[in-house]
């Protein structure tokens, strides 16, 4: 496992010298080092100040994207990444059955599929509905997982019908018993309430109370405690009930109006200061305002944990001598149960888990965060993979590839012998020898129909912990227009670098790695040579652990990866400017539309790992 070398990442310009958060002084290290670039194009001064990009900085992981993740905004004429575009949900659908859920129904279905799509609570793969007898039209039916062989029988659940499983499941508790109603009565009746008064934990008549409610000595059976969903419903009903009695009974109270809206200034007072008249508990209603009370009974959502609850969990934990660990749920299984759609995130043991309705997913349109221009617009239909609009950055910026320059070449400005990393030939990790110069061919291919001027700059020494030396032999060049092949044939330009098709995958022995000179050039591509001298990755801090063994601190996962930050600047003049009606809109600040486009960004090239 590992990275596949070579690779390219692009840092979206939106994080260039990113909008500093006010307390920026607290940052330990800036993402951009204040070091001048080694080979800076002569042009403007402010760019020269720009500090090189440190690909190993922790923040870099958040601003770097594979080029295919990036978009391009034609209004802003800039790259757009997931951080500087805005997403809008277009359609909601289930990835299992590909049915679209109307947006109005998404929430009520808990953001999950309302059909028969379920995921295994153990391994999360898709479940299927099967007849318990293997075949036939008579039930019962079960859900089972072909991957880990879990079935709903493991939690004692079977279904009468093979359809509408979700509704059936909502009414069955684990073990097969009907699920306790999740909607208790909104106003607790006295008889039911009084049965709790005998429990020492629920309200007792305190000595200070002169006006005791009637106590009944009945032995009504103890209710099973409500599950969290039912408790929530009960509490919600309780709060609502307290609020409405307040409003109805106190039309004249200054802090109370009938206006229940969110923006009502009085609302907050009402819920938090909670005035109410005597509610449904006293037979005669007193007009006096009274503070809203707290929940007092289980039917109102109050839950006093029983002393046995913890003990029973522990007993279960201890019960099976070897089963203690495997019968408990993993953290990811618990998280998978999260949501209002019937899971049991408190499940500690596997027999408490519930099959989960498949989560819905969305198709999303994307807009530019700055100008709201639409960048991506997919077709709403779940089965379609087409887009009505999709402005991918790779249609604008050159495609970049890197390959080793094979053989030794002593030519060029003082370049010493170089060797290609042999591992690359076998398609494995690329291993670079420390202190040994290697030469690479960097090739840029132009997707545009216009020729593009390119300047690429890299710090002479890579920023960060390890300063690898990097030299781009030819930092400025042009790449030709991506004219169609037949056009090129008609133009019958003598191809100065041979057939482009052959060159693209060719072994590249036609060029010369020489300072200031392009290595090779094709129809719409140009390649230049890059020389890299890795420094050795030191095994940090040899420390003696408490035992006598000497332990070597491990190198960070990607600390040995050699990555070259490259500042890419592109400019081109847009061709075929017609004199259409919208010419005015095209004018630049000076009132002239010269068709010039510019683009600049940091690119990170992953070359290989330095041998340890």
């Amino acid at each position, binding site marked *: *496992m590992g*990275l596949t070398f070579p690779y390219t990442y692009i840092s979206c310009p939106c994080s260039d010298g990113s909008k500093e958060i006010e307390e920026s002084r607290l940052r330990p290290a800036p993402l951009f080092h204040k070091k001048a670039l080694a080979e800076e194009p002569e042009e403007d001064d402010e760019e020269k100040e720009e500090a090189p990009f440190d690909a190993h900085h922790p*923040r*870099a992981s*958040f601003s770097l994207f594979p080029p295919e993740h990036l978009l391009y905004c034609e209004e802003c004429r800039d790259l757009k990444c997931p951080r500087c575009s805005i997403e809008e*949900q277009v359609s909601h659908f289930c990835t299992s059955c590909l049915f679209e859920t109307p947006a109005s129904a998404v929430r009520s279905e808990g953001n999950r599929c309302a059909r028969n799509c379920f995921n295994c609570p153990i391994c999360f793969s898709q479940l299927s509905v099967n007849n318990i007898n293997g075949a036939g039209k008579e039930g019962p039916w079960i859900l089972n997982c072909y991957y880990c062989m879990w079935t709903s029988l493991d939690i004692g659940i079977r279904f009468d019908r093979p359809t509408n499983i979700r509704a059936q499941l909502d009414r069955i508790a684990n073990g097969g018993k009907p699920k306790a109603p999740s909607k208790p009565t909104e106003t607790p009746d006295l008889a039911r309430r009084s049965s709790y008064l005998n429990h020492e934990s629920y309200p007792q008549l305190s000595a200070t109370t002169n006006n005791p409610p009637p106590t009944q000595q009945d032995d009504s059976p103890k209710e099973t405690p409500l599950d969290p969903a039912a408790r929530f419903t009960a509490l919600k009903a309780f709060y609502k009930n307290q609020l409405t009695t307040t409003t109805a009974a106190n039309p004249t109270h200054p802090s109370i109006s009938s206006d229940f809206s969110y923006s009502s200034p009085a609302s907050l007072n009402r819920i938090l200061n*909670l005035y109410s008249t005597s509610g449904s508990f006293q037979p005669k209603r007193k007009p006096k305002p009274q503070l809203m009370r707290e929940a007092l009974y289980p039917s109102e959502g109050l839950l006093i944990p029983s002393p046995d609850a913890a003990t029973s969990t522990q007993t279960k934990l201890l019960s099976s001598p070897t089963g203690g*660990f495997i019968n408990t749920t993993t953290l990811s299984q618990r998280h998978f149960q999260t949501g209002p759609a019937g899971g049991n995130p408190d499940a500690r043991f596997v027999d408490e888990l519930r099959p989960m309705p498949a989560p819905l997913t969305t198709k999303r349109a994307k807009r530019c965060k700055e100008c709201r221009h639409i960048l991506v617009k997919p077709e709403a239909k779940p089965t379609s993979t087409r887009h009505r609009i999709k402005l991918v950055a790779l249609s604008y910026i050159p495609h970049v590839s890197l390959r080793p320059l094979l053989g030794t070449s002593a030519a060029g400005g003082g370049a010493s012998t170089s060797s290609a990393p042999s591992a690359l030939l076998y398609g494995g990790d690329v291993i670079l020898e420390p202190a040994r110069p290697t030469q690479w061919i960097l090739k840029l291919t132009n997707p*545009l129909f216009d020729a593009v001027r390119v300047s690429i700059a890299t710090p002479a020494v890579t920023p960060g912990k390890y300063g690898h030396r990097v030299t781009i032999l030819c930092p400025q060049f042009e790449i030709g227009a991506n004219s169609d092949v037949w056009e090129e044939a008609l133009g019958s330009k003598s191809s100065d670098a041979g057939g482009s098709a052959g060159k693209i995958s060719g072994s590249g022995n036609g060029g010369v790695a020489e300072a200031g000179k392009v290595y090779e050039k094709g129809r719409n591509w140009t390649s230049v040579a890059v020389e890299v001298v890795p420094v050795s990755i030191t095994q940090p801090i040899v420390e003696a652990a408490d035992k006598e063994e000497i332990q070597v601190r491990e190198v960070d996962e990607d600390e040995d990866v050699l990555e070259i930050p490259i500042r890419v600047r592109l400019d081109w003049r847009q061709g075929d400017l017609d004199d259409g009606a919208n010419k005015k*809109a095209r004018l630049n600040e000076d009132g002239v539309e010269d068709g010039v486009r510019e683009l600049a960004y940091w690119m990170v090239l992953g070359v290989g790992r330095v041998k340890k």
Partner: protein
Amino acid sequence: MASNITSSIASSVRPSLRQAAQPPSPHTPSRFASSNLSSPGSGFRQEDDAVIIELGSRYLRAGFEGEHSPQCILTFGPEDSRRAGDYRGWAPGHRRKHFDIEEWGQQHELWRMDLRDVDLGLVEDKIERAFREVYNEYLLTDAGSARLMLVVPSILPHPLLSTVLTTLFNRWKYASITLLPSPTMAAMGAGVRSALGVDIGWSETTVTAVYEYRELRINRSTRSMRSLLKELARTVIAHRQGKGDDVPRIEFELAEELMARMVWCKHSGETTDGRANPLNGAEAQVDSTPSDNTDEREIEIEIDWPTGVSSQVVTLPLALFSQPVEKVFLASDTASNYLDDNEHSLPMLVYETLQALPPDARALCMSRITFVGGGSKIPGLAPRTMFEVDLLVKKYGWSTIRGKRVDDRRDKLREIAQGRAGKPDARFQEPLPPGEDYIEEKLRKQQAKEALPVVQGQLRRVESLGAWTGASLLASMKVKGFVDIEREKFLQHGLAGARNNVDISVIPQRTSSGAGFTKAGDERKSWTLAGWA
């Protein structure tokens, strides 16, 4: 960089790209095609329901108001800090760099209260990425369109709070963001108005006295789930070494699984009804002193211990998993005299918080003790804490003589909330200001005439559905939130604007209502930071 004039010029991209602008092919339109065409995603969904997001140092919970459970719980971890498109961490057989137990944590956290260890830029990056994931994969709604309510700890250093708000306002078009303090929300989620909220969190344990939805007092301890995790790892390693096993290492993820699944807390000696606790037999077997009790009670569990490429079955006594709890939360190995204030054991922290309260508030709070946070899930820890608190009360009563260094603690709190201007501990002034407080009067009157029994004065635990769910309850009642931060004002003035407002216009609420609810009349003019000021 490109000039910023607007232009609709066609570029010289491939013709195929431009097809996009053409009208769609005459497919059968889906049900919502018409609204999709005009403006994708907007307007055809009920956007009224607020989104509630609870932020902690380790977890993020997100969902909609009026629902009993969040849609998702995300944890922060090293895999979330990779580059886009780098999925190595999920590949089978992938091995991450090994970290020493003492280094654990930082990679798995969104922030730390100690800002010296925090790169705020990284906090910004993590929040932005996490929120994007939450909206796109779980909430399935457009970020910024619905109201946002953030449930956050009631003490959050200003730079962190500011970073969170700046990130969210800059990134999305939230019109306003409401802040809700987690201890008060936990009380809401228990159905009570006063409570002693014990939050055994990842990086610290807090005990907050909430009285009539106001925070009266908060005590904190560094004893937390993070320290438990480390202690558990050390204990397990030491045990294996003691058995002569060749223990290479334990990884964070394995330790965390063990903590979530196997850790438990023993009762103290006897169960409340006087029976000998059957669970403590297991404990006897692993006492450091060799026991001659040959009871067959030693229960062992088998776990798959990853070793490089494969795994190895390792047997561990279950009793081992209660030891770290004793040490970390109950401080059974250290005399409390030797402990710093912020190192008090859990029962002592609860006791001291109660002790420092005015008697009437204490009477209410002690009968409404809620346990939330990761540690509340440890079987037996909450009952054991209650048991120990009861012992402390019996031993010391509520005499204040024990409360030696209350003032020190205030100073410590002030340090923690560094960057705060003004009087950070204003809300810890215990007596509420007399007079002119209608609520107080009402409360007293009510207590005098209360027809319904009020449980007070006895130690009692009340189960809370948690801070997130409490906020969901509050929000579903469509009342104005605690601290509403309006977009334009924040972007112009930042938190400084809020602080000024507090000083100028809303002193009464700051002193009389720590949770920040406003009195009728001054709520629309300014927002305040209430407890966060």
